[in-house]
């Protein structure tokens, strides 16, 4: 999602838009210790850091504990339907590309019931940022397995071990054409904020999957779990690490270079599937290619002149102004 506001800020907003101002009056009702707090803070900070005018931010969320996030940010917030946030948000952005569109929701919301939209949003590459709160459970309905819960696991909220294989959100996103794919961690405020900001600056469909501990239902992936060191090839290493630090670079420099694109894509798949023991934070893949909003102009050249929402259709007296002559064409007898 790139910031393409109509008018450039008259004065820098930085001072006036401290993250605190982005808090709405509504107090979050999440459980103590929930990872959702950190993600919400980071979203507010990223908006502030990028100086996105909040009245121009259209923030969509799904339904779940995570889905409530839109209520806590002081901007145009839309708490949509379970699994449908990407459909709503694409509709809004395509209608009004001048908006800064951010989307957030749970892993059940996005990868479960929303899987169909998730797949097709990748194909369109509409310019927006999608933040998934990945806690491996359906929080708000009391802890059933979400699509990211590994098979055989039994968090305390389940009656029996899980019988279904997990989804791999990164491989899925890469297969579906997402142009920015990253992971961060709810308790790593700095990395999270920076990653969200990078996603928002990316022009195209960006996915940020955030490890979000749910202390109430998921006793397997807790803060202490993520803090643990693991042994890889005999030596202890942190479980959660920055891929960048270990030399990984997922950014395609020249999207017209087929070889580079392919190499980067394969490197990303490789990285994605090397997450058994450890979890890499950072950008798995990023490429710059035309967005849907750009591409649609090929077929509707008038959109080079007008933003869709600004296409005129009435005068000041509210008389419709569209001349139907061309539309009737040879149907006039």
């Amino acid at each position, binding site marked *: 999602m790139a910031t393409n506001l109509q008018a450039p*800020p*008259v*004065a820098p*907003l930085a001072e*006036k*838009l401290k993250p605190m*101002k982005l808090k709405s009056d*509504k107090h979050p009702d999440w459980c103590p210790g929930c990872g959702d707090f950190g993600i919400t803070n980071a979203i507010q900070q990223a908006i502030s850091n990028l100086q996105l*005018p909040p*009245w*121009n*931010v*259209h923030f*969509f969320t799904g*339904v779940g504990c995570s889905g*409530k996030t839109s*209520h806590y940010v002081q901007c*145009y*917030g*839309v*708490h*949509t*339907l379970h699994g*449908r946030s990407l*459909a*709503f948000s694409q*509709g*809004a*952005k*395509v*209608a*009004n590309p*001048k*908006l800064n569109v951010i989307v957030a929701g749970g892993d059940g919301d996005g990868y479960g019931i929303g899987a169909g*939209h998730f*797949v*097709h949003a990748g194909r369109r590459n509409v310019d927006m940022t999608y933040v998934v709160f990945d806690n491996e459970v359906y929080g708000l309905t009391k802890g059933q397995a979400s699509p990211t819960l590994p098979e055989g696991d039994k968090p305390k909220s389940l009656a029996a071990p899980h019988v279904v294989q997990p989804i791999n959100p990164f491989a899925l996103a890469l297969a579906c054409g997402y142009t920015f794919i990253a992971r961060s961690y709810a308790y790593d405020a700095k990395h999270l904020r920076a990653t969200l900001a990078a996603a928002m600056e990316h022009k195209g469909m960006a996915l940020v999957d955030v490890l979000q501990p749910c202390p109430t239902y998921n006793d397997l992936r807790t803060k202490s779990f993520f803090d643990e060191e693991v042994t890889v090839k005999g030596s202890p290493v942190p479980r959660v690490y920055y891929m960048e630090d270990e030399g990984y670079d997922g950014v395609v420099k020249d999207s017209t270079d087929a070889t580079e694109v392919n190499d980067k894509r394969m490197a990303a798949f490789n990285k994605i599937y090397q997450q058994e023991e450890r979890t890499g934070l950072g950008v798995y893949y990023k490429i710059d290619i035309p967005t849907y909003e750009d591409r*649609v102009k090929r077929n*509707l*050249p*008038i*959109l080079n002149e*007008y933003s*869709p*929402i600004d*296409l005129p*259709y*009435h005068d000041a007296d*509210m*008389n*419709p102004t*569209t001349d*139907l002559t*061309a*539309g*009737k064409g*040879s*149907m*006039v*007898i």
Partner: protein
Amino acid sequence: MSGLTEINWMIGGPQGTGVDSSATLFLRTMAVAGYHVFGKREYHSNIKGKHSYFNVRASHQFVQSSRDPIDLLATFDKETATTHGHEIIPNGALIYDEKVVKPEDIEGLDASVTTFILPFDDILQEVAEETDSNPMKLVIMKNTIAVAASMALYGVELHHMEEALKGIFEGKKAKLVPLNMKAAEKAYAMIQTMDGFDKFTFKIDPVANVPEKGSRLLMNGATACGLGKIKAGCRMVTYYSITPAVDECIYLETQPHYGVNVVQCEDELAAMNMVNGAALTGMRASTATSGPGFCLMAEAIGWAGICEVPSVIFNYQRGGPSTGLPTRSEQADLMFAINVGHGEFPKIVIAPGDMEQCFEDSFECFNLAERYQTPVIVLPDKVLANNTQTIPHFNEEGLKIDRGFIFEPTVKDPYDDVEGAMATHKRFEVTEDGVSPRSLPGQPGGIHWLTGDEHTEIGHITEEPSIRMAQHEKRFRKLDKALQEIPQDRQYKLYGPEDADVTVVAWGCTKGPMLDAMPLLEKEHGIKANLLHIRLFSPFPAEGVLKILEKSKQTMSMEANFTSQLHRLIRMETGFTIGHRVVKYTGRPISQDEAIDAIRQVVEQNAEKVVLSYGH
């Protein structure tokens, strides 16, 4: 019997072999010649090979329905001849190809019917030789031959076809005009020399005052809907392909200059929710679908209802249930549309009854949606979408755009007054008429929240009973307002004499056959009928409808469904039980003849229920 003012022609054949093109040619030719035409299209859910047919009625008078008996049937395959032969009126005619069928194979073919063997292949061969063309490439011209021969039989001058062809083949394709005319001339001349040519007496008189060129439209309902949306300023139509809704989208895709973004979605859940998202921005947006897709929109329509979003849904009704009769028509989604979505929320449900209303409703629905800030469901059907008809130009005078109560920001320079720009706005303010000021993202000072949960005036989730009640009541008050404000004509209308013997209550496309039937009923059967045509179903104009029904001598409903949905709805809304009911559930439209027949059964024989079933 020369000097007819109306004829009824049919052409049929396997899908994908040009039945549509020939009907289009005939429709256009007759329209050019000044007639009023009405074309009915019937086809299978199949791409190539299955039987389809097109029925064209041409008349000196404005007509808006089909008739049953055919005077001339043009065929070049066996199935059309055997399926429809029995529908030919006594002394009518059949054009056929003796290579594919013999008249004796046609069950029910009246002995008085004149049969014309048309040597399609020979004519094509001749044209091919004369023009040095590949005969295989000319096969499609069989249609032109059938039309030309039909014109000769009807006594319509051939030059009208040339003009019609010019309208069809424009630009690069213009060279096809002389080629087609060559075949047409041969067929036209040839049939005049055939045995029986003079026996066929269904000649139609030329129109005395041919309407001025450019003064009318020859159009189907899907296009009329598309044009209404364009005029209304709708610049985004989402869809997931489905028959027959997709016809509107296909039309819009051919009009890129208007900038309507026709967004193909991954499914109807996306289509509807994208419209919700787009409508939130202030864009006028709509989705077009049919039954199965409409089912998938139920949840999202409810969200638009509680969030007071002006989303517009076109559900082009087709034969149900389930996949049903996907290319046939039915009026069977009424009760579902009115009750769609769990829980309760206000929705406006309207259904156009003819081409003009298709245009008008497609324009007005956005005004309704924005004025009452609630989803609007429009229910055309396959018959309206696919029928082709000559109509006057739409009445574009007096159309107004009504965007409803939109918030006016007071903050001038948001960067200067950041505090003000970030202020919270009461999007769901509890007002007397239920309508609250709608702010749009991007507007400084308009920040609010939306949620499918019950919410406060600024849009935050609440479970507080008193707020719930205030919001629930406020939302429903908008329907009272709508019922007061929507012009009565667009709620319901009584056509015909007030003091009729029988009042027929109908909706949607049944208007056409009823209006065509009424004069004949009186003239030929001495029955004075009127038509109470309903266009607004939610909110329901109970008072006005009841007043008319109570004054009626006799009442009957006429609908293309099984359970008499409007009949039931009226009883629910008014307590009034309409006396008799007519239904049809074959997926085929009710014709003028059937309307007459049904009314006679009710009035003359006091039939409680009439089940219609004509047509293939």
